[in-house]
């Protein structure tokens, strides 16, 4: 039986080290008519 966990950012842990706000405003990139935030890269210079 298959069980493979893909490496992902831990969202609970990001409570501690996130929120710097330097990331891009999502609508500025390409959509302009919807809101997807998950495809924005993190620009926090500190440990993620």
């Amino acid at each position: 039986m298959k069980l493979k966990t893909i490496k992902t950012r831990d969202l609970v842990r990001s409570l501690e080290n996130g929120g710097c706000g330097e990331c891009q405003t999502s609508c500025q990139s390409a959509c302009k008519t919807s809101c997807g935030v998950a495809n924005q890269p993190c620009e926090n210079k500190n440990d993620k």
Partner: protein
Amino acid sequence: MIHQFQCNGYFITLDIFSGSIHLTDDATAEAIRLRETMPQTEAMKALRAHFPNRPDVTTETMLTLFSAIDQLEKEGKLYTRDVFKPYASHLSSACGPLKALCLHVAHTCNLNCSYCFASQGKYQGDNALMSLEVGKRAVDFLVERSGGRTNLEVDFFGGEPLMNWHVVKRLVAYGRSLENTHNKRFRFTLTTNGVLLNEEVTDFCNREMHNVVLSLDGRKEVHDRFRRDHMNRGSYDKIVPKFQEFVKSRGDKNYYIRGTFTHHNTDFSQDLLHMADLGFTELSMEPVVTASDDPCALTEDDLPVLFEQYEFLAAEMLRRTREGRPFTFYHYMLDLERGPCVYKRMSGCGSGTEYLAVSPWGELYPCHQFVGEPAYSMGNIWQGIENATLQDNFRQCNVYSRPACSDCWAKLFCAGGCAANAYHASGNINGVYDYGCRLFRKRIECAIMLQAALTEENE
């Protein structure tokens, strides 16, 4: 909480609140589902009953599997509870300073696209070009209100911004002149229909524009259906060679070929593949946003077709990547390891707070989609925010302020969705645009499938 789905033959479990993604087979997916609510012994019985003839479902393999599932739970990668809600109430006070402006440098357009959400560039108002004076004051306003934020974004938007090109260039120069003295870094972007694209514009964009969004709907007959000039001539033949030249000279700088699909081309994956076959690799395609009585509006009957299209697109992208000719689809870009933190995922696009739109006359709106809506005028670039109540409404708008999002598994991918779409669909920025939500959820499933499949193959 978990969300389980199948896409292109992949069985996937998303642990909603940790963001963990697990690739499984059907039996493991069922085991994870059962174990969420049952003790192990009961879950084993139920799993055996569900797969009575499967040779791989034995007592020994089940014991190993459930042990692994329990370990994942201990590591915070399965059945994670929602611990974020209390933090959402702090978002309004923690809401950052201004960091992005959409400058409407031209409320006029050299195309006459009937489906345009900006009503052919005029936003239900008069034709207008932003003056250099207004533009410079807007840039000053952004710097003044940006606090300690380093990265600032300015998008030149319209209408068609190349119809006010000399102002665009001067505003870029003005912004650059402020960077060192104010410890800021501007990222300029431009959204254009390409009609006025030439060598001089291209060279300037390649030097100065962090990103350029080029509007193309796909196949010639699809593009020319709506994207016609004021003489009613299609624009495909005019702009595609310009876009190809532009992209060839762009190097590794960002660009997107961005299209809109409507009820008339629900087979939109063919338009994306057409773009890829034209040599473009950075692609975006949005569902049309229009009134439900518009003949080009997407319908309920279109949804199953669109779902199938998104799934086909993910499979085709995987195939082309394996063949060494990949392309990017904006909505399938998920940076699983270095994506946004949970604060971003709760607070959304920042419209009305971190992000504002500026009309050609210097009025402030929560975002470009509200420009021209009198009730959403927030103030101006000279006096600043004058409608503080309205800004507070946007400040308090997040994924936990929308009742319809409370049980949605995808809420940390969209942060509650687009406030403008919610307003136009429900009359309230804390509502939702349900049709858009359904498309979004399918896109995210396909995006997760594609990224998980690529990650697995690269390991």
